[in-house]
């Protein structure tokens, strides 16, 4: 019974992790059709921002939840103005340019922070459920992931900006005919997406030893999760994260973590073969 509880938590945690690491990419892809391959590096910079903030004395929660998203959001803003802005509509070119940026950021981070691993410890310790040890921080992550989904939903469907942004995403020319500047909308949307990536990086900072190349371990999974999710931002993210989280964790339990990873990748290949437009390309069409 305890084991079932622990397994359930681990599966939900696995799903939450995918949501967390993919949210920023999903916003930018779902709203702007931009594939930001520097997303992993945005996370990495969020991680470093958090660590630096904590080392300077700022409370760890503020560092993770405010400093990291803000710093990376601003970096994202600069990137959007200097690079992305010129490449809208050119999907492959944006991928390549952001790939270049990712290498740039890794190099820059290496120059600033060096190659050694830095880290901070998780602010929440573990506790026991029966005979098993549960990581308290995992529950925090699950909580954050849920909050992210809820806030995204609220922002997109309940706020004025969300409505305008969704309108601009569908028809930029109509949005501008109505007096809204698509340019600004894209800029702010990219800011939001980058901030989410920074947030993810900040939250993950206590979990991993941070090196400049940490982002690379996330980008593949995030990319795969977002593409498999399909066009809808929230429904796509939630559904593909759930599917892959379930599969990867199940295989990890049955075999080894490596098999779990491979299973996730194979599942993605099969899914895309069957549903080339992603999950929400077929279901939830036109929804959010």
């Amino acid at each position: 019974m305890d084991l079932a509880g622990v397994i359930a938590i681990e599966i939900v945690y696995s799903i939450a992790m995918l949501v967390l690491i993919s949210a920023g990419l999903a916003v930018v892809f779902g709203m702007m059709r931009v594939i930001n391959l520097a997303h992993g590096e945005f996370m990495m910079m969020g991680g470093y921002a958090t660590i630096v903030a904590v080392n300077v004395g700022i409370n760890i929660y503020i560092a993770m939840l405010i400093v990291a998203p803000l710093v990376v959001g601003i970096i994202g803003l600069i990137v959007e103005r200097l690079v992305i802005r010129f490449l809208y509509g050119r999907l492959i070119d944006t991928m390549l340019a952001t790939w270049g940026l990712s290498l740039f950021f890794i190099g820059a981070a290496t120059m600033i922070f060096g190659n050694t691993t830095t880290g901070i410890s998780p602010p929440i310790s573990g506790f026991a459920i029966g005979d098993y040890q549960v990581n308290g921080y995992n529950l925090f992550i699950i909580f954050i992931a849920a909050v992210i989904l809820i806030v995204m939903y609220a922002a997109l469907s309940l706020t004025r900006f969300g409505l305008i942004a969704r309108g601009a995403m569908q028809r930029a020319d109509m949005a501008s005919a109505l007096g809204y500047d698509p340019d600004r909308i894209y800029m702010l949307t990219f800011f939001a997406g980058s901030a989410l990536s920074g947030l993810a990086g900040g939250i993950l900072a206590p979990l991993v030893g941070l090196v400049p190349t940490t982002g690379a371990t996330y980008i593949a999974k995030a990319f795969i999760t977002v593409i498999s999710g399909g066009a809808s931002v929230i429904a796509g993210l939630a559904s593909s994260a759930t599917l892959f989280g379930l599969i990867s964790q199940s295989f990890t339990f049955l075999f080894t973590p490596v098999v779990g990873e491979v299973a996730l990748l194979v599942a993605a290949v099969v899914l895309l073969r069957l549903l080339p437009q992603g999950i929400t390309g077929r279901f939830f069409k036109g929804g959010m």
Partner: protein
Amino acid sequence: MAGSEVRSALTVLVIAAILFIAAPAVIETYTLTVLIIYGMLALSLGLIWGFGGILCFGQAAFFGLGAYTYAIAAINIGESTVPFLLGIAIPFAFAFVLGAMLFYGRLSDVYLGVITLVVTLIFFKFMNSTAGPEYVIGNARLGGFNGIPGFQTLNVPGDPGTYIYDVDYYWFCVVAILIVYALVRWLLASPFGRIAVAIRENEGRAELMGYDVRIRKTVLFAVGGGIAGLSGTLFANWAEIVTPGMFSLAQSAEIIIWCIVGGLGTLIGPVIGAMVLAYLKFLLGQQDIVDNMMLLGLILTLSVLFLPRGIVPSIGLWVSKAMPKRRRKRQRVRRPRAAVEEVPGG
């Protein structure tokens, strides 16, 4: 093959041969050899992407597969000829099967990119985890993270004792890339090649003409895989070790960067891009001032922003603009070569 095609191909081959003969005076052959190998690898992607419109994010998969196939076969057989051929055949066959899955499934470009990316990731993760003694093919241990060292390298066919290495191996690679280039130019000028370009231009119309685009793309993809496999085999002989890093995302990324920076409108563009960037990386690796990854990333981003067609086509454009008008007109009529307006596949 049209006269102008033959002439242009021969020109490139002659100039290349001259450069390869002169180069060892400036750069040592050991470095030149790997530059040539990377050039061939870039050529394989340049073929399927620039001319076929197939964006493969995982070309490294065939590179690594060729290398590992060679290494494993060489350990088991002890003589290099069959392993060498297998190092081309196996990646070709694998690319054929993978290609069939992708093209008969009629997937869009982006998803194609994702799946090829995933395949190379699977290889990477798997090979990295094969450290234990139970991971063995015949006599060859897969070696996990450390890879496979110590296999029979290239020898004169039939005579395992006489190795082809060092400067001899440099010439071997020079001949190899010149032959590959010539064969691919021939392929592109043939109906198969022309139809492949047509498919890239407008797949729907090509189908309405009656062409089975699925099998054609599959074959082209397999040829690209075979060439990448050959470059992997050559690499294995040069490095004398094969590692999972050959399958890595970073390696796949580099190949794409070579093609973009070199330019996809021609066949030599990617080769030049590869050789220049790989050499740059080598030089940068010698210094400590600026991080070389940062510089490479900057080059790529700036390339995409300012030279969307890449180095070679851009140079070609500037040269043709500088030429007097009369000669320009004659050039245009003589070369009905497909222009690459945007990055193909985008």
